């Protein structure tokens, strides 16, 4: 009987906790989602400033990246003020030192990198986390897709975070090649 009583009390505590959590969850959910949507729009503009609006491609509309650790998750076509295409923003995922790294790259119609943002990463705070800083991402800006885009060649790694830097550079390179090969398909 005692087991039943204890189980019942535990169930009661869990139920109260679940109730409180669902309340907080539904209170914060719209705010978190809205922030995420705003964030997406803001970073899109940051990596492709010449665009006025963006049109997202369905995942069936583009070819996947042929790689085992790197993926392209979203492609946004940048549209200028006269409804003309100005470039493309590509969201890609790779594996860094501490977990997956999500980056967004803006590429203009003349095959120049217009901006890079690290959207998500789990790299070591204070070291690998520096991949998200302008001093690192800025290195890629205004390079063309035909540049070598490799660490030690035309890029420098962050001290103490070679793996994280390497991961980002490789993904950028991969996406650059991908865009060169496939961009006519969705232009």
């Amino acid at each position: 009987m005692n087991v039943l009583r204890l189980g019942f009390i535990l169930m009661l505590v869990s139920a109260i906790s679940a109730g409180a959590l669902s309340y907080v969850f539904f209170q914060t959910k719209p705010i978190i989602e809205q922030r995420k949507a705003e964030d997406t729009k803001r970073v899109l503009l940051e990596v492709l400033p010449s665009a006025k609006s963006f049109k997202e491609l369905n995942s069936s509309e583009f070819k996947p990246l042929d790689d085992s650790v790197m993926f392209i998750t979203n492609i946004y076509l940048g549209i200028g003020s006269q409804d003309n295409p100005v470039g493309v923003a590509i969201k890609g995922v790779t594996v860094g030192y501490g977990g997956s790294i999500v980056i967004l790259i803006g590429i203009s119609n003349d095959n120049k990198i217009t901006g890079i943002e690290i959207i998500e990463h789990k790299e070591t705070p204070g070291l690998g986390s520096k991949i998200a800083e302008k001093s690192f991402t800025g290195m890629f800006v205004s390079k063309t897709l035909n540049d070598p885009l490799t660490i030690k060649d035309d890029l420098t790694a962050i001290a103490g975070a070679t793996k994280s830097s390497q991961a980002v550079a490789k993904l950028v390179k991969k996406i650059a090649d991908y865009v060169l090969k496939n961009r006519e398909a969705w232009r």
Partner: protein
Amino acid sequence: MKQLWKDFVNGIISENAVLKLMIGLCPVLAISTTVVNGVGMGLATTFVLLGSNLTIALIRNIVPKEIRIPVFIIVIATFVTITDLSMAAYFPALHKTLGIFIPLIVVNCIIMGRAEAFASRNTPVRAIADGLGMGIGFILTLILLSGARELLGNGTIFGASLPFKGFEPALIMILPPGAFFAIGIMIAIFNNLFKLKRDGGHKHGSA
């Protein structure tokens, strides 16, 4: 009133969780790379500590002894999830940098330790005083430790560069070994400043 003050100060000095009891070291060592991270982690932990201490003190006479630990864990996990969601909604930047360490507050020994050792045996008011003291002691320790590490390892303080040039940061201080150097030195200094006059404790000289 006097008792409350004693409970409060207890957590800051004589039973400072990190420097004296040496519990909760994992998050301390891991996130003390910048002051902003340190303060964010300190505040999040303090909020959870206050919430769990209060709740556990309130239900301490209802919860059967046999299942107190699972009940404590549910209470703590609930507050941690609330903190996690609220931070994601209202402080997204901080939430991003602290990342995985927020959910890991659940297994912070300080919170479970205070629940079991203090909140489950004392009145809600005393539990709050204890939670506040422990939390503030934790925040202060984190500020000192992360301040020293950020300054020495990154050459910045609160993310701002030093006003003068010529200081070359020693990167090792924000690497994991630096955390151990810094916490070791801090514990040594702290224990010298607040010597415990207990038998078998610290010996002062040969007298």
